[in-house]
């Protein structure tokens, strides 16, 4: 363990990390966002979904630095008197949950299909890649819209809110696999022809073991990068869907839902209801994107 830590601290990766203040800042921001989201029930000053805690008396309070603001509600309150900071933390929790689950789902599908396509080749490969091409020519958001649209029609109305989380994870997860599949297939094709794989075949190692223990670990670098950037883009997709009213319902709001709800108050001057969740979203996505960018450059041997 100590040895592994020592190796990490001595590695090029850690060195390039330390050297880029922007990346360090992004890592800290991402850590704060994630911690705030994951531990929202313990960290948030209020529980905005506990009816006993909210009062209409406190509705539409501006943030603390504006006239009329209260130090109890640092970022103000919404029209129902809920603390914006707390709703943001709870909302991030939903956003993050959806994004991570959808990314993991895309990754599992994509990596498996990519690995199989690259290693097996032939008709299997043509078929998988053809499907990927077609899928790629349709923007993820459209497919996600369609899936959640279908879900909306098929599911009984009373179940829609309950199942919204699963429908949205499914619709984002199903649209994201192509990039993984293409990348993994690409690196599998490269790795497959490398002599260490041929050496394993000469030794007589079975194909699935070669795929799993030789090819896969060497194809995972770019997957890590895509997954990081994928979380960011899944957060965005979810927010967009929720904003369009086909994502998370108001009873279980994500950041996108919050922004959508707050938007109606933008013109009447209560800008904080929509802007603060917006900022939280931006900070979260930018920091994750920055980490992904850094990871890509750090893992790209050509740039060193």
């Amino acid at each position, binding site marked *: 363990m100590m040895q592994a830590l020592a190796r990490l601290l001595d590695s090029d990766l850690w060195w390039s990390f330390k050297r880029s203040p922007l990346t360090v800042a992004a890592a800290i921001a991402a850590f704060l966002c994630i911690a705030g989201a994951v531990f929202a029930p313990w960290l948030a000053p209020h529980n905005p979904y506990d009816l006993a805690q909210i009062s209409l008396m406190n509705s539409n309070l501006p943030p603390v630095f504006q006239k009329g603001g209260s130090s109890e509600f640092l970022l103000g309150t919404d029209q129902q008197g809920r603390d914006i900071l707390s709703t943001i933390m709870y909302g991030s929790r939903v956003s993050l949950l959806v994004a991570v689950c959808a990314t993991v789902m895309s990754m599992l599908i994509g990596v498996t299909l990519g690995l199989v396509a690259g290693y097996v080749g032939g008709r299997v490969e043509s078929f998988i890649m053809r499907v990927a091409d077609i899928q790629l020519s349709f923007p993820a958001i459209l497919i996600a819209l369609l899936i959640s649209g279908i879900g909306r029609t098929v599911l009984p109305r009373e179940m829609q809110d309950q199942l919204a989380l699963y429908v949205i994870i499914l619709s984002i997860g199903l649209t994201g696999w192509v990039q993984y599949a293409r990348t993994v297939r690409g690196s599998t094709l490269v790795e497959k022809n*490398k*002599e*260490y794989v*041929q*050496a*394993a*075949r*000469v*030794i*007589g*190692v*079975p194909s699935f073991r070669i795929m799993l223990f*030789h090819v896969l*670990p*060497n194809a995972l670098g770019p997957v890590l990068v895509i997954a990081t950037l994928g979380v960011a883009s899944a957060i965005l997709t979810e927010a967009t869907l929720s904003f369009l009213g086909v994502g998370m319902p108001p009873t279980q709001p994500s950041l996108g839902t919050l922004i959508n709800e707050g938007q109606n108050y933008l013109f009447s001057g209560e800008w904080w209801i929509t802007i603060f969740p917006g900022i939280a979203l931006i900070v979260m996505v930018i920091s994750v994107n920055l980490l992904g960018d850094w990871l890509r450059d750090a893992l790209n041997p050509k740039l060193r």
Partner: protein
Amino acid sequence: MSAFVKLEHVSKAFDVSPPWLNRVLERKPRVFLHAVSDVSFEIRRGETLALVGESGCGKSTVARLIVGLYKATSGRITIDGQDMRSADDTSEAARALRRRVQMIFQDPYASLNPRWRVADIIAEPIRTHRLITDRAAIERRVAELLGCVKLTAKDGEKYPHQFSGGQRQRISIARALASNPEFLICDEPTSALDVSVQAQVLNLMRDLQREMGLTYLFISHNLQVVHHVSDRIGVMYLGRLVEIGDKRQVFGAPEHPYTRMLLDAIPDLKMTGKARTPVAGEVPNPLDPPPGCAFNPRCPRVFEPCTRERPELLPAHGREVACHAVTRMARAG
């Protein structure tokens, strides 16, 4: 001594046809790349046979056919009397045969999995074939193998990128030796190495052959290296064997015009003032080889039958040659 490895009329063609729709619309036929055509030779136990030729002549394909990375289109490959085709399946006999034949690759940087520790790389054949199951015993065996290639047991803890090219190639050799093989196929094992390091690897290979009685098939484009390591030499051109025989015969008194040209094209290190005679022309497109003898467009001794009829590999002057001019002379003499 009887033949340990035997190839009989082995051919390998790759289908490189344009897609179906193009063939239909543009009336193009199916296209096959004949990488290896009708190659037959034998290797005796304990000897080194070298295959030489320029890139694209099919020498590496032969190597891959023998270890089973490719399946031959036609012909038969036997090792110690056992048909290599049985190596397709996962039978016990096939596994046993795989264990006895190992390969050393060209690129020391690509032939070791960068994410594995050296000890795990070397232990892989042992674990795959379940030669030893006891962990401590595997460890001892790996240490012993590392010693064989002049590395230390501690080197096993490191990753491949911590070694130089020559050291990596020695690790490859250790891995190949791990399953106690009898036959090693070496595909350009030193062409990616610097000269001084090449000498280390060649010396090591020779020592190992002496100690373990290994049989080598050595593939290289470097004629000096081939001359140094081999007992017998086969020269390939466009997928075919054009001359094969004892090293002193083939390189000392080459018969096939192509062999002669190759030897003439070697830079003269001793600087005897003899200018090197460049071979005219280039290797023809293998998809569309010239009729008759494939070498005829570049051959200075070309005469009528060469463009018409493919010469057979026939014995002449103590070796086998596929050349109309040579066989005619031999018959006349």
